[in-house]
């Protein structure tokens, strides 16, 4: 191993783990008017601040719900674990493990919905930067007869994600996005969501369980007929409205 590689490994351990690892690295720094310990701290602070900012940009709702001080502390605790550090320099790719991490923290165990809300924000983020692909043209649909339609399978736009939670994510989201909203009543109310992008911007639709199940079947490559059979007994389910939601929001990429 080269001298440079050894030094870079030592720097990484010193910054992230501190303690004895830091002691091993400090003699590498030239001793001038500011102590090596304080200089290393400048880099450590810069690295953790950049990681925190990246998480804050993706999980704006979590920061809003917890307040800056608490959320920043959690971000720091998350980033202190080497397994959570980014393995890419594109920080838009990083943060997927943060929601589950929130679920492990005793200090915020009285806020059990945070993990789910963070999952919701992560999917919204993924949707926002998903690949640009064309959406299904409505003209193509006009060429399909009824028999073909029953057997057709949909390929969703890469920006489309389905999410379900036992918490009222819609009410929580309202509090996060609307400063004038009343605080929400935390009761167990299942929420079903479809997130997708239309004309560059992602949108969120809170839907009923039957719509969610229907969309989940389609996303799992059930044929239109097979997906419909899963939910047709549900009185509130309206096939035309469900399909209209997908098509009018450009959530379908292609049809097979």
């Amino acid at each position, binding site marked *: 191993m080269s001298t440079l590689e050894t030094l*870079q490994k030592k720097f990484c351990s010193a910054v992230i783990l501190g303690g004895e690892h830091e002691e091993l690295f400090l003699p590498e720094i030239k001793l001038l008017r500011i102590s090596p310990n304080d200089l290393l701290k400048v880099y450590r602070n810069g690295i953790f601040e950049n990681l925190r900012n990246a998480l804050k940009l993706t999980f704006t709702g979590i920061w809003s719900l917890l307040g800056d001080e608490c959320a920043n502390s959690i971000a720091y605790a998350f980033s202190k674990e080497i397994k959570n550090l980014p393995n890419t*320099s594109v920080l838009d790719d990083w943060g997927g493990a943060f929601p589950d991490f929130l679920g492990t923290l005793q200090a915020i165990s009285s806020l059990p919905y945070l993990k789910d809300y963070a999952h919701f924000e992560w999917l919204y983020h993924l949707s926002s930067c998903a690949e640009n692909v064309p959406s299904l043209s409505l003209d193509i649909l006009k060429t399909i007869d009824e028999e073909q339609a029953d057997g057709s399978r949909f390929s969703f736009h890469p920006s489309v994600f389905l999410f379900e939670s036992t918490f009222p994510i819609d009410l929580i989201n309202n509090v996060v996005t609307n400063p004038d909203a009343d605080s929400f009543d935390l009761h167990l109310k299942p929420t079903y969501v479809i997130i997708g992008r239309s004309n560059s911007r992602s949108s969120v639709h809170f839907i009923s369980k039957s719509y969610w199940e229907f969309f989940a079947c389609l996303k799992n490559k059930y044929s239109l007929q097979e997906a419909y059979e899963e939910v047709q007994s549900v009185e509130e389910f309206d096939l035309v409205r469900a399909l209209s939601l997908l098509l009018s929001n450009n959530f379908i990429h292609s049809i097979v």
Partner: protein
Amino acid sequence: MISQPFIGVGLRSPHYHDILEQKPNIDWFEVHSENYLVDGGLVLAMLSSIRKDYPVSMHGVGLSLGSAQGIEDSHLGRLKKLADYLDPFLISEHLSWNYVDNTYLPDLIPVPYTDDAIQVFCRNIERTQDFLQRQILIENPSSYMEYVISNYSEPEFLTKIASKSGAGILLDVNNIYVSCVNHGWDAKAYINSIPKNLVKEIHLAGHSVKEIKDQKLLIDTHDNFVCQEVWELYALAIQNFGNVPTLLEWDSNIPALSVLVTEALKAKQFCKTLECENVDA
């Protein structure tokens, strides 16, 4: 060499709409490559719209050219895809590292200035230039620590790498000032020691001062106006290197677009004033 001043600012998301509506009088924009290495969505759409009206350069913070373990194939591939999409007039990276053992540390970490590190940089730069099929520029970083094992000065190290690898130099005048104050180096001697033909771009920015146990350390925060000392070094730089493209960076506490543009245009005024002085002389 560009004969007229060619002054740009960093493209930041709070300004997207103002840029598209106001079409500010600025020559070009610099984008941070890593902010646009996504597959699609709003940020790429905005960038694409702005690109129709302005030249852009790509400035990376994450390729980690100083990594002894080499550079990431996937990152290089994504940079190439963005470069093919944007057709930037310049692509630049830093004289630093931030990637080891599959872990990315988001900062510009200095390397020791040694022969070992020169070899690593040259290998990584050559690979990048071969892959991108074009020259890249390397920017001198702001630094807060020096290594015991360094045996070159920073300008010597930078010049050796650029000369051997065929890369150009992006000379960040604020970074020179910050590092020189922090380490007790001579900023004018630094600028005067860089060969004229290697410098292809100049950066300007503001910095902040941190007090550590009664000692001052300058931090490259890009959150303020350019200070007078840096403007004076800029004057020396353009005397030495001519009207290479100059960029004003402002990344934190981002002001209104008009403030940013006004600050950047000071650089244009500097170039013109110096041009007049040279003609008069």
